[in-house]
């Protein structure tokens, strides 16, 4: 059985990755699972300088999911390169660094410096975080803005560029096309869906930021639909995510057209979710006598 999948010339041993922001820099979860088993580790968003993030409460539970408004807290690129990247280099998995910024120049600064790091297989550009005021989603909700930043990043990037798309748009196909037209090597989706929770007993917002990003199994049908629409719209690979908890969930995304998948909020529910998803995909392939994982990609019929 061959579970390999290739994205922009980078071959992953299996299609299962970690969704940015749910897996720290990998270090936190390395005590709970063997990182060597993962197709790739996608890091928490990294910016050119340290970001303190939002006030607390930053997380809230909702039916079948959660809201978060972390605000992209991260230690900055220097600490990432000195501490987190060398840690990840010990493992036989691909490293995908998620990049965030407030301005185009911020993004470019990170992308340029990461160009010197040969252990970074790909870059994922976060233009879809709903929880920060500047940057991020400002680039991810209009086709012209997305095209512009993608184009600029591609001028400097040494590694393949994945644009991470927001679901908080009218037409996801148009957004994917804009990224492709600007030279993106792949797109990943969905980031979280903007939501809100109100504590009716205290008559207060559950999150200090008032709004937050919804993730978890509650969003999976929305994510499968958007991955399908994006995969129909572009020729570049699509990485699918949104509420994946099992191998069956992952297969749904593959059939919808994803070349790889990420596990996000469910890492919090069980640190072994990624491993269970990998084993679930293998069990599915065995059950249906599928030799190559690539035969599943976009294979939905009817």
């Amino acid at each position, binding site marked *: 059985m061959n579970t390999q999948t290739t994205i922009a010339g980078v071959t992953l041993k299996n299609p299962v990755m970690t969704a940015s922001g749910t897996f720290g820099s990998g270090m936190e979860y390395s005590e709970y699972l063997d990182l060597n088993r993962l197709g790739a580790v996608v890091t928490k968003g990294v910016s050119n300088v340290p970001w303190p993030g939002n006030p607390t*409460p930053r997380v809230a539970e909702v039916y079948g999911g959660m809201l978060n408004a972390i605000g992209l807290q991260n230690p900055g690129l220097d600490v990432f390169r000195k501490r987190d990247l060398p840690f990840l280099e010990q493992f036989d998995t691909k490293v995908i660094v998620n990049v965030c910024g407030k301005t185009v120049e911020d993004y470019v600064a990170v992308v340029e410096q990461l160009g010197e790091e040969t252990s970074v297989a790909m870059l994922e550009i976060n233009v879809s975080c709903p929880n920060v005021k500047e940057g991020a989603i400002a680039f991810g909700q209009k086709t012209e803005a997305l095209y512009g930043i993608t184009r600029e990043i591609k001028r400097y990037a040494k590694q393949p560029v994945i644009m991470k798309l927001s679901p908080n748009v009218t037409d996801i196909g148009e957004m994917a096309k804009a990224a492709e037209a600007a030279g993106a090597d792949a797109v990943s989706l969905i980031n979280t869906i903007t939501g809100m929770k109100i504590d009716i007993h205290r008559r207060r917002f559950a999150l200090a930021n008032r709004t937050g990003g919804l993730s978890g199994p509650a969003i999976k049908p929305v994510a499968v639909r958007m991955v399908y629409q994006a995969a129909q719209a572009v020729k570049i690979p699509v990485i699918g995510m949104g509420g994946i908890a099992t191998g069956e969930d992952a297969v749904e995304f593959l059939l919808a057209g994803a070349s790889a998948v990420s596990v996000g909020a469910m890492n919090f529910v069980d640190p072994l979710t990624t491993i269970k998803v990998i084993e679930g995909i293998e069990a599915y392939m065995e059950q249906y006598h599928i030799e190559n994982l690539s035969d599943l990609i976009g294979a939905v019929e009817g």
Partner: protein
Amino acid sequence: MKQKQTARVISQRELAPGILDMWLDTELAVQARPGQFLNLYTKDKSLLLPRPISICEVREDGRALRMVYRIVGKGTGEFSRYREGDPIEILGPLGNGFPYEKSVGKKVFLMGGGIGIPPMLELAKRLKAEKQIVLGYRNGDLFLGEDLEKYGRVFVATEDGSAGTKGNVMDAVRENGLEAELIYACGPLPMLRAVKAFAAERGIPAYISLEERMACGVGACLGCVVKTRAVHPHTNVNNARICTDGPVFEAGEVEI
């Protein structure tokens, strides 16, 4: 590798209205330090996230943990219905715990407010110090006081004055003219702010256990942070993760 384990409920009873006392059979108990917590997972899958609950007591043989918690919603409501032999998924022990070795031979306060009282029990058992245990409750529905009396002098405060000093734990300290060289505390934020101010005034260390809405419990999601006085070495910003850098912090290090 650490991973989620299935523990069995040994017993469960109500200590006071809405306060449950559950013993769990688990080999993880031997690793537990006072002030650490467990992530408890519900069977109801519409409730996604683990419930972080502090460890109240470790059984002498290191094979069982006592969890004393308040019913605050659906998740803890589900736990409250568990009976002897029921399985429950747990992860832990998590967090740093109280640095109880620091108090050898000293005169200390153990201060617990409401559902911050349970972690004081295992701490009291392990401390080799002169222990003054100050407990704050909303009303006369007291719990764990009798267990704690075995390990030190207990002082009680209630908000409505129905038992002990009327007011909070600091009122009980003042009324009884108590002094200490070191403080351990867990409770609501206003209480911990008062403890921090008291310790700063006296120039004594205070180790306080904080809580915050959490998702992962292992330091990955950055949901449960507290502002810190100095740049924290791990996060490289003025934030520490309550789940892994804490939940216990020296009061002077955090901005609460």
